[in-house]
């Protein structure tokens, strides 16, 4: 297999890497760049554990994306949401304050998915949140606290912008 050289920006840092074409973006993040915060759940687009944010706007499943096709893209993982000083993103804060986390396995994906929603729709209704979170599975929380955390995050962002 001919390797591909790509430039991938992850959480602001540019990585010039040479990778095999059969590696998914998830493989590269976890195994090549040692960034294990993005999780492997199903590998087939069903669970959302591997969700990342591309070019600061759209959420995708990194398990179904060939890394070699992401040349020049900017990726945000859950570890890239906080500020350089370590202040959590309002969505992360809301998840913590609302105890929307139990084992935490789904959390990076849930948080990024919620960030993606609030970028499109800063003031979503409960139904809109539930609909948007389809494709992210949580085996622990029962979703209630996640939904209220997203509502809280929307308010926090509105206040900060306010």
């Amino acid at each position: 297999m001919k390797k591909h050289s790509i430039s991938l920006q992850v959480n602001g840092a540019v990585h010039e890497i040479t990778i095999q074409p059969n590696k998914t973006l998830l493989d590269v993040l976890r195994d090549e760049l040692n960034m294990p915060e993005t999780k492997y759940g199903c590998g087939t687009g069903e669970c959302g554990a591997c969700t990342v944010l591309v070019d600061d706007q759209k959420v995708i499943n990194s398990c179904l994306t060939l890394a070699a096709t992401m040349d020049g893209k900017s990726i945000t993982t859950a570890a890239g949401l906080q500020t350089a000083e370590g202040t959590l993103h309002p969505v992360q804060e809301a998840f913590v304050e609302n105890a929307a986390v139990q084992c935490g396995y789904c959390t990076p994906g849930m948080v990024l998915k919620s960030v993606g929603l609030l970028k499109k729709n800063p003031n979503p209704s409960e139904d809109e949140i539930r609909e948007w979170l389809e494709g992210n599975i949580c085996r622990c929380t029962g979703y209630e606290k996640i939904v209220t955390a997203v509502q809280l995050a929307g308010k926090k962002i509105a206040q900060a912008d306010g």
Partner: protein
Amino acid sequence: MSTRILTEFELLTPNTIPEALSILNEFRDNVIPIAGGTDVLVAMKFGFSTEYAMSISAIPDLDYLSFDPNKGLRIGANATISQILDSKAVKQHYPALWQSAKIFATPQIRNSATLIGNLLRASPAGDCSCAVYALGGSIVLVSQQGEREVDIDDLWISYQNTERRSDELAIELRIPAPEPAGRSAFKRLTRVNEDLAKLNVAVNLVMDGDKCTHARLAMGCVAPTPLRLRATEKLLIGQTLDGSVLKRVMASVKEEINPIDDQRSTAEYRKSVSGVFLRRAIEQACDIS
């Protein structure tokens, strides 16, 4: 079981259409095009192997969705399902297509998956495929030999087989300009929300007052490819959509479809609900309840 490690292949990432056509011309049946990859990657994880894969995502200017009231809708090969869902023109003029995008997969998949990939996957369960079939249209295929436009009616040949030759790239879907009195709708039945369809249906009617002057009906998961319900369409044309016409329509669908038992449903179930399901789609299109 799916695997974490994809089998080996060479990946080609052309930056222009001519480059892509030369790759297809050279490797033909040994290369698989990838757009969003949501079907191809899942297939690879379940053991599909290929010598070459060609990603078209680096080809610029193929991610357009443009609407002109006279010419209709044009959708490029890299345009995603999210773009369809975000389009006001699609929502207003092609409700069947918009509704099929609305229920499609999850936000992450919609951000990667393309409409053209859905058509070329040639799955009998393809949701946008069903909607496009009812709306009518054509797909533009190019090769080093030139360009041709294939009517959607001629695209699907048999289970997962299309009219596309292996040296051809699909670059655009064209859907005709909306009829002023046109109405369309799409519906899907699933086991759970995120699952693929066990039955889907799309209708596209032109009404002159109460009378139906033109009808295209499509149903999915009831034959090896998406199916046009041509005999049932005839029962609508020239008719007022009253109870007795709808009754005949409901009886006709059952005869026209040829479903099988699979993991999502049974042939018997599909047959028994197909009539009501189609009637509801017609009612949805015409705002009758």
